[in-house]
């Protein structure tokens, strides 16, 4: 599909990784980061009309919109954003398994936000001086710092709120903990990142919030026991296929159409 005027004018960035003189691995990295943002944005958007309080409808939509904006810049660095979002098969997506996990209850969503936004913040900070991703990272890190703050504020309130909220928040963290290790497997094209240091910062930050929230740092493993790999290798969890089916259905039903 050739990009229509619609999609090119809509894309926030027109510079491609190739145009920036970056190696092919930059495209791989742009896809990995772009897919993370795209998929998490989609999950958060599923909250529309279902949030626990009106103020939170607005907050969750803000985060989802920030992420979608990031996704559009990143995917456009690789290729046409819509072609990538709507016409790839499940196995071609390289997002983390963490971001594709269904919303669950509000605590589950907040746990996912805490684990991911803390990672994303430190990652973008590490990419600040990167020739390819630096400009995006500089803008996105401000947005993500706010996402992290939102997640922390809610983790503290749910953890140290009522017995029920404490139990739900702990359950959310316990369930998602096993998806957190994957975030620190090096991504080709992001050579500026020291992954061990990133992981150490992440652990210290997340652990501190969990403890302040009177919760317990989960004891389970931080990796799934599957030698084939995980999201970055295009291996996803079952709910992801359904999510993509819903997301891509209309676009695929009208091949070549403009929207």
């Amino acid at each position, binding site marked *: 599909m050739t990009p229509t005027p619609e999609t090119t004018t809509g894309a926030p960035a027109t510079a491609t990784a190739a145009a920036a003189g970056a190696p092919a691995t930059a495209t791989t990295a742009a896809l990995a980061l772009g897919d993370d943002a795209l998929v998490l944005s989609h999950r958060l958007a599923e909250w529309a009309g279902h949030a626990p*309080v009106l*103020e939170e409808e607005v*907050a969750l939509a803000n985060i989802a919109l920030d992420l979608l904006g990031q996704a559009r810049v990143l995917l456009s660095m690789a290729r046409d954003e819509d072609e990538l979002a709507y016409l790839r098969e499940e196995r071609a997506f390289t997002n983390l398994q963490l971001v594709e996990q269904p919303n669950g209850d509000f605590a589950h969503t907040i746990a996912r936000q805490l684990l991911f936004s803390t990672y994303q913040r430190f990652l973008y900070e590490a990419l600040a001086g990167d020739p390819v991703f630096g400009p995006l990272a500089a803008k996105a890190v401000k947005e993500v710092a706010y996402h992290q*703050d939102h997640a922390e504020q809610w983790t503290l309130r749910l953890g140290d709120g*009522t017995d029920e909220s404490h139990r739900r928040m702990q359950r959310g963290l316990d369930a998602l903990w096993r998806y957190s290790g994957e975030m620190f497997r090096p991504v080709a094209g992001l050579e500026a990142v020291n992954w061990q240091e990133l992981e150490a910062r992440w652990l210290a930050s997340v652990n501190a919030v969990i403890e302040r929230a009177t919760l317990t740092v989960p004891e389970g493993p931080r990796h799934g026991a599957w030698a084939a790999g995980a999201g970055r290798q295009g291996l996803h969890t079952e709910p992801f296929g359904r999510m993509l089916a819903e997301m891509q259905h209309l676009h695929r039903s009208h091949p070549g159409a403009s929207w």
Partner: protein
Amino acid sequence: MSGDWPLWEVFVRSRRGLSHTHAGSLHAPDAELALRNARDLYTRRSEGVSIWVVPSSAITASSPDEKDPFFEPAADKPYRHPTFYEIPDGVKHL
């Protein structure tokens, strides 16, 4: 335990050099979340550079019934306003 959150009044400074102006209200369990909700709600089109949130219950207002005694004394002091003074034509920078 009740889940009713108190009401907060939101004041937004739209840009440096201007005062905070009342933008509206919202509900939040505490000041920190009130501030964040205000940011999301009242500045999502970059309408502000600074926000105040105040519990609505902390505001003491003048009563509309007291309107006259409260504000009228100021109305009979026109000498506080520059237009009170007559200046000959042609005099500038005053």
